């Protein structure tokens, strides 16, 4: 009787194991394709003009802080899947959301400095004030320059000259170089007598009431703006984007009136990975309200292009004042942190709750790298796409961040036009240290073996790869790599294996002939799987190589780190 029970239990367990394994296998994704990897996700077909959809701070705050976590069961049973919009090389293709820039091609210092700029900012000469606003965190104007371009002028808070404008100019360049669509933001200096009032100019006060703009309103707004001792004002001139604004994009779901928008935003790698970019640049105020969808017309097609806007609350700036010590460490209402304090009766007091003044330069604000832990960084409130970030998403983002050299970072910081060279140098150091912290944390979560390149030689092909982990660790220790080449369809059929002390493998003609015989269908014929790992480590890089015997050509058709 007892034996029967054990037998039943064993049958049950083995059936369950087989079932689980089989189910897992069934969900295994397509990892390679003999076709060229998709480099452009064409989500730019002509659509009808969508409705304008805007959310304000209150909605973003309540929805993300209270409603969403509640809907999602406070993340207890969160099932994170990998992102949809990746190609067979595990990269994000270009789209209306993202354009690969520094991650695939090293941008020159000039390109970094230029960023998205089409002009050098407002043209010299008189500026016509066409609109004023006293609502929002920072007051400002809309001005038209002599070329007819319209700019929004945003000012630094009194006492913190250069802080928010500098942060916005610098972050704009970096977000652009990362690959996001951003507006043209430039530092602009002017004098009061340059401003002329358009007789039709309107002013919206703090209560949303619209009326005619007066000289007194202009003076009142300028009174709230920091200025140089010589009376010159400094502003961030944000050029109006081309197209028609149709509201904000969200970090979850899709836009119903945009047929191009089919991938749920929380499963877009470019939005999940944005968490890491935001952590690097301390973009704590990332939310729907700081995104903008523009209905644009390009190449005869009308579609939505998605922009990140308003970087005034990045780096050390919280727009109207320097970052509080808790910025980046806790959400504005952080249930997890509150729970820790409650359970410990207040004994839990993390360093970021200190009242210590950490502002070293007023033009930089509170921007620190010593206490920065990228995996713990938090935006002002939870963002669903950020919470879905997997190690593969993070690896993708970290790889892009690692592509920024110190010179490129310096070039971006120079666009902030900080008067104090020490402040600029401090900022550069913090950005470099934060970059290194991110790369250390997230590159090492995967194999870090990447950037496979193929080169034909007389006796076969050479496969080069890069060891990002060792490269970034600047470790000169000799590292050994183990590799294994097998049939892609039948990984047990090993074609070659061994150890090398260099990031280079030679595929001899004999091996290539063996590869040509791999596979059993047209889709996998000639495809071999290459596994590489550091000796003594478990994490490995998988690459799929296709040998086209007729052309004697070896191609990379899939990769997974």
């Amino acid at each position, binding site marked *: 009787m007892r034996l029967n*029970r054990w037998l*039943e239990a064993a*049958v*049950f367990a083995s*059936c369950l194991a087989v*079932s689980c394994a*089989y*189910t897992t*296998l*069934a*969900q295994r*994704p397509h990892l390679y*394709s003999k*076709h*060229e990897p*998709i480099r*452009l*996700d*064409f989500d730019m*077909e002509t659509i009808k003009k969508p409705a304008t959809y*805007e*959310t*304000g701070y*209150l*909605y973003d705050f309540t*929805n993300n802080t209270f*409603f969403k976590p509640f809907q999602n069961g406070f993340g207890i049973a969160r099932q994170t899947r*990998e992102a*949809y*919009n*990746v*190609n*067979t090389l*595990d990269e994000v*293709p270009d789209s209306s959301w993202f354009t690969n820039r520094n991650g695939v091609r090293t941008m020159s210092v000039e390109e970094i400095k230029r960023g998205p700029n089409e002009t050098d900012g407002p043209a010299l000469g008189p500026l016509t004030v066409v609109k004023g606003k006293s*609502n929002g965190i920072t007051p400002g104007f809309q001005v038209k320059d002599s070329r007819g371009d319209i700019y929004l002028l945003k000012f630094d808070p009194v006492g913190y000259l250069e802080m928010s404008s500098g942060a916005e100019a610098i972050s704009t360049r970096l977000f652009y170089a990362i690959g996001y669509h951003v507006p043209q933001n430039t530092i602009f200096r002017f004098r009061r007598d340059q401003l002329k009032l358009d007789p039709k100019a309107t002013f919206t006060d*703090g*209560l949303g009431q619209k009326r005619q703009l007066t000289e007194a309103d202009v003076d009142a707004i300028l009174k709230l703006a920091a200025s140089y001792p010589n009376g010159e004002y400094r502003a961030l001139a944000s050029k109006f984007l081309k197209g028609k604004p149709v*509201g904000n994009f*969200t970090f979850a779901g*899709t*836009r*119903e009136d945009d047929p191009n928008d*089919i*991938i*749920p935003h929380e499963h877009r790698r470019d939005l999940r990975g944005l968490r890491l970019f935001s952590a690097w640049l301390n973009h704590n105020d990332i939310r729907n309200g700081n995104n903008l969808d523009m209905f644009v017309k390009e190449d005869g097609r009308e579609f939505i292009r998605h922009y990140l806007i308003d970087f005034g609350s990045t780096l050390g700036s919280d727009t109207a004042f320097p970052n*509080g010590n808790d910025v980046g460490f*806790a959400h504005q*209402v*952080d249930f997890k*942190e*509150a729970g820790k*304090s*409650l359970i410990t*009766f*207040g004994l839990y007091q993390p360093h970021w*709750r*200190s*009242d210590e003044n950490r502002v070293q330069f007023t033009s930089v604000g509170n921007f620190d790298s010593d206490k920065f832990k990228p995996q713990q960084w938090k935006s002002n409130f939870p963002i669903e796409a950020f919470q879905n970030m997997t190690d593969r998403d993070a690896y993708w983002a970290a790889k892009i961040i690692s592509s920024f050299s110190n010179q490129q970072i310096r070039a971006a910081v120079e666009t902030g036009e900080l008067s104090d060279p020490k402040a600029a140098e401090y900022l550069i150091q913090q950005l470099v240290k934060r970059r290194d912290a991110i790369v250390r944390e997230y590159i090492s979560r995967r194999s870090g073996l990447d950037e496979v390149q193929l080169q034909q030689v007389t006796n076969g092909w050479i496969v080069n790869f890069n060891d990002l982990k060792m490269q970034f660790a600047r470790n000169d220790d000799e590292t050994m790599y183990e590799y294994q080449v097998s049939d892609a369809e039948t990984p047990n059929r090993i074609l070659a294996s061994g150890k090398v002390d260099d990031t280079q493998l030679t595929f001899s003609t004999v091996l290539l002939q063996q590869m040509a015989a791999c596979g059993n269908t047209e*889709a996998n014929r000639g495809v071999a799987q290459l596994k590489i790992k550091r000796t003594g480590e478990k994490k490995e890089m998988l690459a799929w190589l296709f040998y086209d015997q007729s052309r004697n050509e070896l191609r990379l058709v899939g990769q997974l780190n």
Partner: protein
Amino acid sequence: MITRLRKTPVILCALLCWLAMTTQAQSSAPIEVKPEPISQENQQEQKKTTQDSETKKTDPQRQRIVDPATMPKPDPKTNKPPGSTLDRGITRFENSKALEKLKVYFSHPIVHPRFGGIGDGSGFGLGVEFTNNVSKSPNLKLSALLHGTFRRYLLTSAGISVDPTRGGRERFQLDFTGRYQLRPREQFYGLGPDSLRSNRSNYNLQERGFNFASVFKPTKSLRLGAGLDFSSTRIFDGTDNRFAKTPKLFPALPGIARGASLLSPQIFIEFDQRNDKGNTTKGVYANLMASSNDSVGKDDFGFVNLKLDARGYLPLGTPRRVLAARLIGNFNNEKGGSHIPFFRLARLGDAQTLRGYRPFRFYGRNALAANLEYRFELIPGIGALAFTDVGQVFDRRAQLSAQGLHATWGGGVEFKSKKSTMFRILVGKSGEGTRLIFGFGQTF
């Protein structure tokens, strides 16, 4: 039956296997990452409806990274589409600038809205206060207040403050205030520490009076004052019909039949070294007030009253953890054979003293109470606290004993702004039950 039951897991396993295999068989449309581009074979199979769609499918530059057919449909429960009711509602509210307007009203130089009750048991109320803060003379301040609650409590007052030294109300100040208040549901359980809970009754107190005070501030933390108060109080049946009427249940109480008119010269001394009155984390505070009260007219009321309020705040390593303690004393001494009107006796059992008891649960000639609070920050803007209160009313000092002390304990949360505690929710527990307390500002 037993055999059939034992077979169930095996059948289940087989079913699972079959399901898994079926899934494998049906998984031609990958739901995971890295879908392949549309193969040429599949493209041939697809129907070519229009020339345009044909162009899109065959043009490798115009393909999508995912097959739209494999994309999950948005779940309306977890994935609210733009323009949902909630979304629109909150956005409309925000666009209406209601919060900004409220902020403007709150910071209005003349009109100030007031929220909350008028003392314990009065319930939630609203009020409006007028001041002449915009006046060009900083040494003259006029004020008026009208505050009512949903339990029909009412407080009105009007006053004038003068600083004859024109020092901007810093050193010397003369205040004159007239007041009128209705308190229709004041609770009374009897006299002494052993009053019965079952004797709950209520009375209606109506008071009009004025107060003249002169305040001198010799140092930043010391205030000395002297003044004269007049009050005329009448007592009627309470309006809460669920309970007995105090005049009927306790007809012999001093002052219950005709009320009392009292003239009270008073002096006080106040020492305040708190770092922040709204969100105190460090320092001490003490207030000692003495008054001599005599009836005006035929009644024989006469007593001396002494009130003490001493507080200390100790940060425990950080201002985010504070131990706060308070001692409150209220002592009355009859003059000769005179009496004390019952509504001027010392009381315990409100949201300030014994927080687990009902408002004004204990009346006595004297009262002594102590509060201890441990306050700590949960997150910036929200704090929690744990507290315990002890106190006793007594006629003679000999009656004061550890055994006679009433104790309460509890905890709660406080919502704070940078300047003050805006709102608190406390739960207090005592031998007579549990009380939920909502209040504005910190307890002390």
